[in-house]
């Protein structure tokens, strides 16, 4: 079971939901929690533990100037403007390189080989006996999030219950995280911003063929528009969490709602069962 938590809008409470769901389920099962918001990963803040960290690298080209005859084929081929061939030398801009390997293929002199370049890290920890946390972290200044997301998902590939937390938005990093999951929880808040972005996120899950349900977070009771949208689009509202300064304070200090107020665990267990029925699986 791969369950992904997404939202169009940022700051709606994805990580809060992911952390509390994983915490609750880890009491009785073996859970892998995967932080796919590699630009701003936060789950490790809720689960401090000793981590094992390794570099995530991408192969980037290295040009052997002794063999290169400056024919310019690599620069012509590169769609990202990462290589500029001058009459007597080659300029390479590593931050623009997408690591497609094309330059090595088109070089007639075989003057280009690839070497790994670090773009971020992957960390694994076991903060609770039933919980494995896998976090990706993009190095600051590095633009490419997707290869790290691919790697953290791969790290959990063989695990049985996987909960993935995504970045906000609807573009490539979010698609990479949602693709191949069995169900998606869309976390929203009932403001016009929340609703607008929920519509976009629901469009993504539909295109990817991943069944989705909704959580309304920080509800102030004025949820009619969101409820209407969900009814029209056949999206089940699986949980509504009210706004309260107390819940906000628990979250902001890095604690877990389900640890401080254990009565919430029942709600999160029920949420998980609703997610399972979204996938059509037997309960």
């Amino acid at each position: 079971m791969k369950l992904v938590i997404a939202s169009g809008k940022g700051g709606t409470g994805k990580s809060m939901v992911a952390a509390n769901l994983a915490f609750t389920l880890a009491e009785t099962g073996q859970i892998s929690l995967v932080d796919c918001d590699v630009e701003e990963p936060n789950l490790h803040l809720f689960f401090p533990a000793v981590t094992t960290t390794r570099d995530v690298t991408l192969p980037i080209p290295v040009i052997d100037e002794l063999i290169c005859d400056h024919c310019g084929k690599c620069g012509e081929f590169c769609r990202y403007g990462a290589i500029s061939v001058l009459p007597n030398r080659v300029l390479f801009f590593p931050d623009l390189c997408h690591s497609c390997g094309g330059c090595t293929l088109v070089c007639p002199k075989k003057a280009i080989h690839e070497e790994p370049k670090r773009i971020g890290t992957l960390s694994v920890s076991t903060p609770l006996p039933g919980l494995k946390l896998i976090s990706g972290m993009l190095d600051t200044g590095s633009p490419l999030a997707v290869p790290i997301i691919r790697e953290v998902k791969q790290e959990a590939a063989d695990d049985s219950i996987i909960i993935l937390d995504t970045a906000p938005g609807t573009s490539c990093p979010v698609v990479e995280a949602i693709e191949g999951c069995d169900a998606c929880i869309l976390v929203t808040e009932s403001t016009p911003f929340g609703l607008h972005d929920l519509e976009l996120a629901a469009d993504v899950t539909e295109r990817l063929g991943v069944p989705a349900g909704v959580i309304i977070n920080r509800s102030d009771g004025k949820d009619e528009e969101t409820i209407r949208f969900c009814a029209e689009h056949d999206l089940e509202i699986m949980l509504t969490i009210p706004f309260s300064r107390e819940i906000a304070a628990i979250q902001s200090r890095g604690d877990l709602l389900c640890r401080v107020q254990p009565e919430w665990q029942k709600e999160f267990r029920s949420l998980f069962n609703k997610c399972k029925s979204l996938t059509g699986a037997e309960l």
Partner: protein
Amino acid sequence: MVSGKGGTGKTMITAALSSLLKGSLVLADCDVDAANLALVLNPRRIRIDPFMGMKAAVIDPDLCTECGECLEHCRFNAVDRDGEAYLINSSRCEGCAVCTVVCPAEAVSMQSRQTGEIMYSKVAHGHLVHARLMPGSGNSGLLVHAVKKTAMERDGDADLFLVDGPPGTGCPLISSISGMNAVLVVTEPSVSGLHDLKRVIAVCRQFRTKTFVVVNRYDLDPAHTDEIKTYCQEEELPLIATIPFDPAVIDAVRAGIPVTDFGVSPASQAIRLLAEDLEKELIQLGTR
């Protein structure tokens, strides 16, 4: 306006500043994944243009000999198999064109595709450029660049260019802050807010851009607000405003207007002070 962490109040502050800061103005909503600025600025559409993302690969099934070279060489897992046939998954294709090089049958070509649209509108205090990325598309960094370029081409002579940026630290964020004179980082008092603030500041530092910090909803966790203050002092970052939690903000968003146009409220007062201080800072920077 950037934030690292999402949902800290960038859009609300951008909208308010657009009616408070002096002079002619052009705004760009560079959170192209989930653009919300238009929802509180009541834009009147002037024009709309298609955004063509990078060309993507297309396999001609009549020419394809099903040899599998494209699948083997694609580093983005963008080649799918449907029975014997090979297909490009356009949402994964990054347009590198390696498949066109390795295909022995010349069955792959690179084709333009529309992955979004760019809107140019009149708003109360100037013009707004915003975009809509087709959900699930890539190239959001490229679209950010196109949105900023549209704003500069049409209103390059404006006194002020305000950009509502995306969350995160990756490609769209980098594209948003490049070339700007100043960055306002909006954070919130929480472990996540502080963690994400530090990361986005690290990116701003690489651009050597003048950077200001705003703590929104500061009273929800005074202890973390203090931690942010200490961090800003240590890093010599001007903490230019603290804005209290205020239900009037949500009411204003629901009414579709900036909170500063919604009557007197604690958040509105704080943002007015922010605008005054920012005005002075921008004059000092020599950009006003």
